[in-house]
């Protein structure tokens, strides 16, 4: 195509499209960020830029709420869950993609079907269970429904499917254990998928609302989204605080994203080497 003829022009066009798209995409987000620097009375003034930018909202959120505590709780739950999901979901995804055994398809569909019941209908049985087992108002109680996910199993299965079987068979002949095949050969080759799963899982738990809301009883255990909900009440919502709190909440997710994004790039190098 034109790329071969006029690479410079192609590149300019490419960047043009991408940057325009990016600007459209980022606009609502930028609005949120800028709003977080507006004093309350300016929230509804409809100008994009704050006229009298202030850090007051941030101070208010940090000093007059338990924000730091919510932050820590969310960080603990999201990190632990992500670690668990990365391990278990890739193990199950690998097993379903690369090992042959009776019942494989049924088990896959069964696990996939767990994505098809909305959480709204599960919270009551979960709460009854947590209540019986003493998990209410604990980190484990918040985290347990998400320590493995049908979503992640499906994602990892799809990516493990792309690995050639010869690679594993060669490993088997070399006497590597089945777990070793998964851990040392297969897993490093699907790093891009693992990174994506890490990002999604962290984010999903970081933003989880409904279940934490039910299982958390004490103030000390509240996570960020549950804390956020306190900014809205019968007498309206404190949008300036919501925007500041939301902006700060994005920082660790960005960090996680940057971290895993590097993994994606490393993944390229590895897959390149492998071929």
């Amino acid at each position: 195509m034109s790329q071969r003829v006029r690479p410079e022009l192609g590149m300019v066009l490419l960047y043009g499209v991408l940057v325009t798209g990016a600007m459209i995409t980022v606009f609502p987000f930028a609005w949120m960020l800028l709003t977080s620097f507006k004093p309350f009375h300016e929230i509804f003034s409809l100008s994009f830029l704050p006229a009298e930018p202030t850090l007051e909202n941030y101070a208010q959120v940090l000093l007059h709420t338990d924000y730091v505590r919510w932050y820590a709780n969310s960080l603990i739950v999201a990190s632990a869950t992500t670690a668990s999901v990365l391990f278990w979901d890739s193990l199950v995804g690998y097993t379903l993609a690369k090992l042959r055994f009776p019942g494989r398809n049924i088990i896959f569909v069964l696990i996939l079907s767990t994505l098809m019941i909305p959480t709204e209908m599960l919270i009551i049985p979960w709460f009854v269970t947590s209540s019986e087992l003493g998990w209410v108002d604990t980190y484990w109680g918040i985290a347990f429904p998400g320590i493995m996910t049908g979503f992640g199993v499906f994602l990892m299965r799809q990516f493990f499917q792309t690995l050639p079987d010869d690679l594993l068979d060669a490993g088997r002949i070399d006497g590597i254990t089945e777990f070793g095949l998964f851990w040392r050969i297969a897993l490093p080759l699907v790093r891009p998928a693992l990174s994506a799963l890490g990002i999604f899982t962290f984010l999903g738990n970081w933003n989880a609302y409904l279940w934490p809301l039910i299982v958390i009883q004490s103030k000390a255990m509240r996570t960020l989204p549950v804390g956020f909900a306190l900014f809205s009440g019968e007498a309206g919502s404190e949008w300036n605080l919501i925007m500041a709190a939301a902006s700060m909440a994005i920082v660790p997710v960005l960090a996680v994203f940057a971290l895993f994004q590097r993994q994606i790039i490393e993944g390229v190098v590895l897959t390149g080497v492998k071929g």
Partner: protein
Amino acid sequence: MLRITRLPGLALMLVALALLPAAAQQVTITYWQYEYATKVEAINTLIDQFEAENPNIRVVHETFPYDAYNQRVAASVPAGRGPDVINLFYGWLPLYIDSGYLQPLPEDTFPPEEIERDFAPMVRAAKMDGRYWALPTAVRTLALFYNKDLLAEAGLDGPPKTWDAFLQAAESLTRRSGNRFQRLGFGVAPTGQDHHLIREVLFRQWGVTPYSEDGRRVTYDTPAGTEALEFYTDWITKQKIGVANFFPGDSGYREAFMQGLAAMIIDGSFAVGSIRNGARVNWGVAELPVGGPTNERSNFGSFWAHGITRNARGAKLDASIKFLKFITSESAMRYWLDTVGEIPARAALAQDPALASDPVFGPFVASLPYAHATFFVDEAGQRQVLVDAVNEVTLQGVAPETALERAAQREQQILDDFWSKR
């Protein structure tokens, strides 16, 4: 020797054992309400006071976000957990009573005739099957919030007393070009308080009693009812004094008012706090205007009430009753008024001249005697019915007559569903 010296010890132990039940009567009860900073603090202070007066009782106070109320209850009940005393919106009471979640208030501690004598009349909405099931600390009514400067600009030296004057002022204060508004004469909010306005204020002013005496039948589907609904929808479609969702968010109408972009709004007493904190305009409060064929005053009243759940049994029940008695006492209400700024549920306190003449709370208090609390059996569903009726007229051009007929049918269905299961 040894034996003798041991004796007193043994005796002491026996005495201690005998006393133990008394000491073990230390009971802990749990109280639930939604999170609202000033309310949480006020209840905490009241709990401290109550615990000091009743050293045997400990009250655990749990709160959660406002929007999460029903989910919390729904999850806790099947798990056999949850509160002994719960703060509920009165409109949810029938459902909670019907399912056996609430216990009736014992009549010896809370005699119905005493409640009816001492509390605001709307509290009767907490009575079912001839018994009371919950009692409030505070009550709410609606009032007209107005922007003093804007009204002065329109040539009014005070708030409008009639709907005619209200409309005139609103029309002259509205600023728009084409279908886009720059400023509203009235902050229309069908999903805010306006559906209550239609139900309990406009219908009644047009001579329509919205429901039958026993609460089983919808009775607003009459020509007069249609006129009342149309009177409201005309504000949006004909006079064009306002538009819904002028400002985004769950209380955009109020925020537009606070910003000076809506000259008037109708809101509840619970909004006073936010408006006081956030309004950048010179505002005032007035009783709702009168109008319609009857020219009578009417208002919508509501309240959050404390009820005792079926979890409270034995010593917990006794403690819960004591606590309920305490938080609905005169002194608690007075404290509540001072800290939270909500109108006391006891009529005697509400008649306090200082309160009645208060420029902000006065109009709300004055509305108490003629405020009606709708007997909701499904508050969310019934609200939706009227919101949809308004939207059908204003967004789809359905005739008010047809919209009201549909609304009445839908609401009757909800009532039938409820009563047929009893």
